[in-house]
């Protein structure tokens, strides 16, 4: 397989996953708002922090109103991680590689790209926004399903899934990072009763609430949620699960020992920490470390397979 096509598939996997997880995040946040006390001024900027684009946002928008943040995250084509930009990038990556994935995936990404270009403009109302976000999530799931059920387990599949798993791990750490920074601040006493609600929202933004309930079987607590999302070995969006899944793909690819080593190093970091006990700045430090590990995995794959 040509390196260029491997790279196209890797990034298609990343971008489709990023569009999906951003949509999930927006929906979960909007739902959370309904449960919050009237008096709370919700800080929409947190969502911009999650995608790591504070500077770009500040340059492009005068204030962090809900409408501005939503436009930036959903439709702004000058923001490379907006849902519209992710879908456009996924489509460009799949254009050359379209013969390597099931034909319906190409049709789906075209449809979704056109959908968001149009519907992404009409997200002012929370109802419309929720419908648009649902559509993106469902279609992203549909594509993943087509790939899962229709694609031979070849290098093309491995590359796509590798991109997807890394992106998923990345988004999970970002969400925990930003949301826990808010939540663990014990000084905001008037929010304390709402903390459980907020942790549930974190779980929901990763579609993890139901599985948490089934597998953790204690009331939702910060420590429990953080442990579940980072270290659970059975939940597909936990960082540990994603790292293991990445290894499963890598061992099938040619001369991947350096890349496998990079993933092992991230797993080691996870094992060395006891995520459930981390709070405050120690959690924050740990998440930074994990981000660095994930970025090192990305770079190792990049240099091993794509740049020769």
């Amino acid at each position: 397989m040509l390196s260029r096509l491997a790279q196209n598939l890797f990034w298609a996997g990343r971008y489709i996953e990023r569009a999906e997880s951003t949509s999930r995040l927006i929906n979960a946040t909007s739902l959370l708002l309904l449960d919050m006390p009237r008096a709370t001024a919700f800080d929409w900027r947190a969502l911009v922090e999650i995608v790591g684009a504070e500077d770009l946002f500040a340059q492009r928008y005068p204030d962090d109103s809900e409408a501005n943040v939503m436009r930036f995250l959903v439709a702004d084509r000058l923001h490379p991680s907006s849902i519209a930009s992710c879908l456009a990038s996924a489509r460009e990556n799949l254009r050359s590689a379209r013969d390597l994935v099931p034909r319906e995936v190409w049709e789906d990404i075209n449809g979704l790209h056109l959908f968001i270009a149009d519907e992404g403009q009409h997200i002012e109302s929370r109802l419309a926004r929720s419908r648009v976000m649902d559509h993106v999530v469902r279609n992203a799931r549909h594509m993943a399903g087509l790939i899962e059920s229709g694609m031979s387990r070849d290098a093309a599949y491995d590359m796509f899934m590798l991109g997807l798993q890394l992106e998923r791990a990345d988004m999970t750490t970002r969400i925990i990072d930003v949301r826990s920074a808010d939540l663990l601040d014990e000084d905001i006493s008037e929010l304390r009763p709402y903390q459980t609600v907020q942790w549930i929202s974190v779980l929901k933004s990763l579609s993890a609430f139901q599985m948490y309930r089934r597998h953790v079987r204690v009331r939702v607590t910060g420590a429990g949620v953080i442990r579940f999302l980072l270290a659970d070995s059975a939940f597909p969006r936990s960082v540990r699960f994603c790292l293991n899944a990445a290894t499963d793909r890598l061992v099938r690819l040619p001369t991947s020992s350096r890349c496998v080593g990079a993933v092992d190093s991230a797993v080691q970091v996870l094992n060395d920490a006891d995520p459930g006990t981390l709070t405050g700045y120690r959690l924050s430090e740990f998440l930074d470390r994990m981000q660095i590990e994930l970025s090192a995995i990305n770079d190792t794959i990049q240099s091993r397979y794509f740049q020769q």
Partner: protein
Amino acid sequence: MNDLWRDYRSPGFFDEAFDDSGQARSAANALVRYLGEFGRTELETRRAAADLAIKSMGITFTVYSDAGMIDRAWPFDILPRPIPKHEWDRVREGLQQRVTALNMFVADLYADQRIVADGVFPREVLAQSANFRPECVGMRPPGDIWAHICGSDLVRDGAGEFYVLEDNLRVPSGVSYMVENRLVSKRVFPELFAQHHILPVDDYASELLDSLNALSPRKDVTPNVAVLTPGVFNSAFFEHVWLAGQMGAELVQGSDLFVDSDDCVYSRTIYGPQRVDVIYRRVDDAFIDPEVFRADSMLGTPGLMRAWRAGNVAIANAPGAGVADDKVVYAFVPEIIRYYLDQEAKLPNVPSWLCMNDTHREHVLANLDSLVVKPANESGGYGMLIGPRSTAAERKQFADLIQRNPRNYIAQPTLALSTAPTLIDGSARPRHVDLRPFIVSRPDDDAFVTMGGLTRVALREGSLVVNSSQGGGSKDTWIVADEEV
């Protein structure tokens, strides 16, 4: 007979299916009889089935517009164009002769230039040729074959005689549509294929692969063949994907390849560099190697010419082969055949006036309203003047162009192109057609000629423009075995 053939007449033109008295020609007889039993609804059902097949098979071509790039469904007319085999055999021999001579001509131009020294081909024509590549002088590709793949455009005149309109020796496209058209018509008219002996066309990719494999510089290993495409934005990208898929070759872009210090070409893969032995390139000469040709080319691979000259990679068509793909050279083809093969051309040229020749030019300038004027190096039907349909201003513009650069123009009489029945709004209507067969030249064998070729049809009434980018359509071309006729 039903509505389909009622009132079908094509006065003044040779019709592919009916003779002047309105009788079906022998090769078309069975087809006409069969379709004559169809009702309007049945025909419409078949037409819809063809549309659906084209859509579901994903047969597209790409057009550019202000709004960007669009993939359009391939335009296909369900009524096939039958040609009797005995007629086709003569055409095939003519094409083989022609392409053999053209390859000898290109080989001569890059070697001793005997044809110029002997005064048969004017030195000044060569000197001004846009596609002559001095960088190729002295090269000897395997078997002295330069134009491995040629697509020649044929037309029939009013008397039904086949003429060669032009030879495309650079990167001719259309062969994928020829094969796909057959697949579509098999789905649409399976009964006809069961009853009649229509010769198959789908061996093209195997023949091409064999021919490309034979060019490999490495004889001890299975060659790695790559199809080099300019990329997804090229109008023929569908065909590039198709060719690579049919041959089991890798579809590459220039940036996927590199030339190492051993002057060999490698592709960048996740398994590491893989040696490439044969490149079927669908990128024009000027863009294949920025070290040698256009330095601004993003489509090529630096060092490719170096590897080719060192004999470490075969390139088809060979760089420089386009020198014979020039409408002025075209006018000399009968002389070229005589010179190299000592034979008369079996397939005639359309009579052509060369504007570089003083008396010819005077004739052309005096008769612009009745001639077709063509630039020497354009393709796709661009930059032409069709005299009988031109305005005075356009004729004035072409008169200026010709006087400024006479070498760049030839003129031909407007031909009464043959027509073929084409389904328009539920009835058969005569529409003009041409035919592009593909000829694959090989070092140790006669050239392979496709069974028929791609028939293109001008869908607008009276129009002669068959290019798909300009509203043309296509038809399945049937070479009908004579015992059935």
